């Protein structure tokens, strides 16, 4: 079947498009049609020529973006309710608004590439192949959780998918991530590691130390700043003299990306992976936004206005990642609005089912208190009171 290239006629997202010659309305059989779509904004480079803003994608990919992000969104909203019902306790940091980063990144890489992040990790875990039951069980402290209920919201990991967590005290994950990259180079794996951090943690000294070493040793490390513009209650301009995080690497090149455009994220990560394998570290700054407060204990409205929050979401401003993909799907006639609604309903059901299943998982056994402190069989004594 001839692949028809659809080109966007103008920069306006809702502009009319050239229809494929076949004139098909719903393309289940043209799932692999390559579409070239322009990102919302061009990339900005620091000491590097940025990639093209025309991103190749397929209807299948766009639909998967939609359903994956809808699932992540639904999971986070459900976590909000569970927290308020006191089934999730302690700290719970939600990712809604930032889904495009997790989803776009996965589209560009494989499970051999590593990802490490801080505590806003539920969706990253899902993106790496974690399932909802493991996620909800962990959030509720049950045995079926990905850390057997012992880690909690901030400590999700998935070794078989090269997901290295899940860290509570920010900053420390970046040297860890560079260490994973070091091992990848050492073992000649041909893989890269993405070390994610926020605009708050971007001011940690250890980041620059790790970056320096990674640059010296040409490690395949990609530092990704998920800039949602607030470090808990402190806006970026109050914490960073230079909030141009993609430039902070100085001698390390950087790219600024619209982090709410999944296609832009995909393009940037693909570009970064190629670069890092050949040359060493690179920084990506994802310009994104979180709808919830810093965590469930923070309303998120004492340091930002409600207008700002709703302004980012509004469809007319097109920043919401899910709405953007929905519009693309509708504009390219990939699926009708009703199908998308069905996907959202299905996703809701999946989440509800997972929660029900997670609730049935028991709390960890008392003996679990002492397991995995050390690796078994190596002579360490455990003293019981």
């Amino acid at each position: 079947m001839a692949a028809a290239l659809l080109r966007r006629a103008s920069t306006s997202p809702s502009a009319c498009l050239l229809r494929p010659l076949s004139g098909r309305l719903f393309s289940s059989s043209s799932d692999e049609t390559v579409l070239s779509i322009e990102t919302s904004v061009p990339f900005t480079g620091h000491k590097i020529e940025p990639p093209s803003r025309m991103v190749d994608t397929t209807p299948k990919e766009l639909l998967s973006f939609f359903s994956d992000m809808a699932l992540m969104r639904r999971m986070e909203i459900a976590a909000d309710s569970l927290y308020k019902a006191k089934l999730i306790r302690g700290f719970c940091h939600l990712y809604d608004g930032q889904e495009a980063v997790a989803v776009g990144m996965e589209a560009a890489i494989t499970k051999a590439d590593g990802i490490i992040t801080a505590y806003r990790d539920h969706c990253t875990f899902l993106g790496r192949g974690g399932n909802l039951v493991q996620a909800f069980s962990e959030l509720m402290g049950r045995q079926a959780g990905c850390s057997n209920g012992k880690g909690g919201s901030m400590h999700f990991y998935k070794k078989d998918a090269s997901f290295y967590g899940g860290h509570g005290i920010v900053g420390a994950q970046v040297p860890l991530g560079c260490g994973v990259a070091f091992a990848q180079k050492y073992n000649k794996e041909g893989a890269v590691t993405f070390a994610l951090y926020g605009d708050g943690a971007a001011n940690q000294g250890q980041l620059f130390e790790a970056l320096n070493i990674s640059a010296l040793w040409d490690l395949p490390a990609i530092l990704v700043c998920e800039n949602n513009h607030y470090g808990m209650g402190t806006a970026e301009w109050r914490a960073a003299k230079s909030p141009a995080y993609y430039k902070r690497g100085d001698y390390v090149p950087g790219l600024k990306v619209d982090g709410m455009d999944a296609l832009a994220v995909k393009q940037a990560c693909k570009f970064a992976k190629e670069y890092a394998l050949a040359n060493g570290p690179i920084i990506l700054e994802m310009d994104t936004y979180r709808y919830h407060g810093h965590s469930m204990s923070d309303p998120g409205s004492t340091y930002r206005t409600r207008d700002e929050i709703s302004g980012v979401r509004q469809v007319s401003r097109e920043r919401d990642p899910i709405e953007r993909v929905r519009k693309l799907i509708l504009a390219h006639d990939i699926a009708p609005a009703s199908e998308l609604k069905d996907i959202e309903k299905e996703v809701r059901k999946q989440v509800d089912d997972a929660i029900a299943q997670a609730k049935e998982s028991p709390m960890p056994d008392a003996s679990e208190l002492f397991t995995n402190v050390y690796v078994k069989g190596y002579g360490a004594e455990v003293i019981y009171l």
Partner: protein
Amino acid sequence: MASLQMAALLSAPSTPVPSDRVRLGALRLSASSSSAARNGGALVVRSEAKVSGGGASARGLSLITHAVAEKAAAASSADSKPGHELLLFEALREGLDEEMERDPTVCVMGEDVGHYGGSYKVTKGLATKYGDLRVLDTPIAENSFTGMGIGSAMTGLRPVVEGMNMGFLLLAYNQISNNCGMLHYTSGGQFKIPIVIRGPGGVGRQLGAEHSQRLESYFQSIPGLQMVACSTPYNAKGLMKAAIRSENPVVLFEHVLLYNLKERIPDEEYVLSLEEAEMVRPGEHVTILTYSRMRYHVMQAAKTLVNKGYDPEVIDIRSLKPFDLYTIGNSIKKTHRVLIVEECMRTGGIGASLRSAIIDNFWDYLDAPILCLSSQDVPTPYAGTLENWTVVQPEQIVAAVEQLCK
């Protein structure tokens, strides 16, 4: 130079304070007002206290010799008791506010302490009152801003550095150990570090391993550092003020779960002694030494123990470094049995050091081995049930006392 330690010993409502408790370790205490009126169980002892100037008007530093409610007229009908009621985090704030007003060299630095008001509201409103230069919002850079706090203290400023959670201060360990602790010594006494490092620590409600740490065990070996742990609104305010006035670096340990404790504290100004332990419940059978949140588990166990016919003496040691061996020793000489209840982990915790100190000093007075109940040597798990088993529970305290008193 301000000499500090004005100790106002206003007893807690039901605990009369014997007069021999007025000695405060190495601190001087003038008996100028030992004509202290003893009225309704209240005793105020006034020591010499000079206010460090710097142009600050001492906010009517009215030390009164007896704490009878002079303000009764001003109080509402519902408020016929002296003092005012507040929550622990408010008491900390009150102490901080009073010291900042009194002394312009006192400043606060930490993450989200200013405009946000503090993640536990200890600094709420202070930024509006004192401005951005005295209540400083730092980026997330603990190593650096703690170091900067220490550096500014070397010149004479009195910073109060907040770790949003004590665990974050591990990033600043080098600064705290090497600079804070050592500079006075290595400079031959030239530099003083009158810094206060404070923040919430301890096991909370399922906060996860990294946010449930107890740093008192890590810091206790650092020479030159003083450590105190507050546990009630009354001692929180008093210790905060004392820590700020101290010429030594003081680490003030607060606890995540104690911020909302409510208590009625005096209206008049008071400062507590950093080196002093607090007698919570006098008794005869066994000395229970504890601090911070475990005090409440101990008091809960004490209720059960009293019903079973035991008479435990409960001491909140408050001063984690140095230990108030005077108070502790007096107690051991009376009861001959010691139980330590702490939230630190067993290995290398405060209890371990306290045990050694007691053995060294009071071995002859002991009729039984010293028992120490500590948290398990594991990272704090997230699951609620596991987390409960990590820390000492009242039932274990009761069992330990029964074993001791066999």
